[in-house]
């Protein structure tokens, strides 16, 4: 190699060197390329179409002809002037905030409980949580339907037996508030395992010596909790909260199936259902696209915090 390097002119050596580098440098791009191409085709292109459709009149006729009629910002105009959109947005925000609040508070309390109980109870509770975690949403909805049915649902029976009042043949699907309340119980129940197990994993990262040192120094237990435990689990809580906000804002399956399509009205719309009904069921794809874009923009704004946080963690390595 050395003799070859001596005999070849300087420029040639340098060129060979860069050629080699260029070859090596292309490797990561070649590895990433398939994902980029596929995602571009199956997501990038539809997102581009989304913008196009939102500016079109795009109904069933246009769907068959594969071509919309350009109408500018009219779809956005009619959505933003529709009081149903604003009511739905407000309802969805309140709904998501309630679900996230309940999930995070109960989830954190249960994780703290896991630290305090004997091993056999912890194993039992963790196993139960994993089982709940693994229930497909559609299955959970059907179980809820059975448990809360007004004729002989077990929920009414238990509530009556426990003297919470007379729930004999109580219909939980009577008012939008009660309907969405039931959807909340379903979602919080399904979301708890992930939160509890993740927060518990974070809690086990709290250095034992630190807690003991603080206790020896005479710190009261809640002080230890605030000064030692909370700082360690805060990053995990933030990530979980942001994820929950995004998920609960975009809820569809549980609400749509538990309330049941015949009972879906503008009085109980959530954002996902509103756009499904307006865009897909009524075959007004242009209007649906406009709602989708508004929804995606809201979610994108909310997820900036999360993405930045994940990136910072990724940078550490």
């Amino acid at each position, binding site marked *: 190699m050395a003799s070859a390097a001596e005999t070849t002119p300087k420029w040639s050596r340098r060129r060979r060197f860069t050629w080699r580098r260029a070859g090596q440098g292309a490797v990561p791009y070649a590895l990433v390329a398939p994902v980029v191409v596929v995602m571009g085709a199956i997501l990038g292109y539809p997102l581009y179409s989304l913008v196009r459709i939102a500016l079109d009149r795009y109904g069933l006729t246009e769907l068959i002809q594969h071509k919309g009629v350009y109408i500018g910002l009219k779809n956005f105009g009619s959505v933003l002037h529709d009081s149903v959109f604003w009511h739905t947005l407000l309802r969805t925000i309140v709904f998501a905030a309630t679900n996230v609040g309940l999930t995070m508070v109960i989830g954190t309390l249960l994780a703290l409980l896991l630290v305090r109980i004997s091993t056999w109870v912890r194993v039992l509770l963790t196993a139960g949580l994993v089982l709940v975690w693994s229930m497909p949403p559609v299955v959970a909805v059907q179980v809820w339907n059975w448990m809360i049915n007004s004729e002989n649902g077990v929920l009414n029976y238990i509530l009556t037996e426990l003297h919470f009042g007379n729930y004999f043949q109580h219909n939980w699907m009577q008012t939008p508030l009660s309907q969405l309340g039931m959807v909340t119980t379903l979602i919080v129940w399904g979301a708890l395992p992930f939160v509890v197990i993740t927060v518990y994993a974070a809690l086990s990262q709290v250095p034992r010596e630190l807690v003991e040192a603080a206790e020896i120094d005479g710190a009261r237990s809640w002080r230890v909790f605030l000064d030692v435990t909370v700082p360690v689990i805060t990053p995990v809580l933030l990530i979980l909260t942001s994820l929950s906000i995004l998920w609960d804002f975009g809820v569809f399956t549980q609400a749509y199936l538990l309330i049941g399509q015949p009972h879906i009205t503008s009085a109980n719309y959530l954002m996902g259902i509103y756009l499904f009904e307006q865009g897909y069921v009524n075959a007004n794809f242009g209007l649906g696209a406009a709602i989708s874009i508004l929804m995606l923009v809201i979610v994108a704004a909310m997820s900036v915090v999360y993405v930045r946080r994940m*990136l910072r963690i990724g940078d550490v390595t």
Partner: protein
Amino acid sequence: MSVRNARRNAWNVVGVAIFVVMIFPVFWMVSTAFKSDDQINALTPTWFPLHPTLKHFRDALAKPYFWDDVKNSVIVVLVTVTIAMVLAFLAAVALSKYRFTGRKLFIVLVIGVQMLPGAGLIIPLYVVLARYHEVNTLTGVILVYLTGVLPFSVWTLPGFILGIPKDLEEAAMVDGSTRLGAFARILLPLVAPGLVATSVFAFITSWNEYIFARVLLNDGSKQTITVWLSYFLGTSRETDWGALMAASTLTAIPVVVFFLLIQRRIAFGLTAGAVRG
């Protein structure tokens, strides 16, 4: 009996109570599935099946399209997971073993894409797939599922690859292997557990998916098992709760089995793994 012990026992009681509340819906589903109709329709519920019967399972299996739709779900899930794992593994190698211009942008896109709510994508994916006549085909559903499963896998896998000691890989290269050879012989077997965990997670996501399957697939024989289950009640006034709970149990079983298999790795993949990526 110290105060400490008494306090622990009190917490244990709370823990068991919460276990009972959390597990109850699952218990109620399975218990109902084995009960006789008389017991199910009684005004006062009873906790356990008095005369366990398999009748409801037979009824559920005899419903039209059950086996068709199970087969569809299996096809969709297997194809989605296979494609996602191959493509995501390549990208994960690039992310964990190379620094390159655009790496950060790529990561931002991968995380960002995962934040998009599925409901917001119904319209564009439906319209585009209709344009290419992929509505009411399993191909269309597979493509849609890839939009979710692929970024998730790209995001999770690097965490598992980074866990492999660099020395091992270098040792393989010193032995005269090319970089590619080192990957194939050393990296692949070591990454296998991570690939399994990620693909099981992808399996579960695709098996459970509902909205897109509902929107894209119209024929009873072409649907997936979740859509089949959602239509189970039909329009009849009389509800066959026993068969519904048996069908629900059957739908949940594959997920429960896989979930229990990778339970430890999930927590790892989502916290430690993802965070290290």
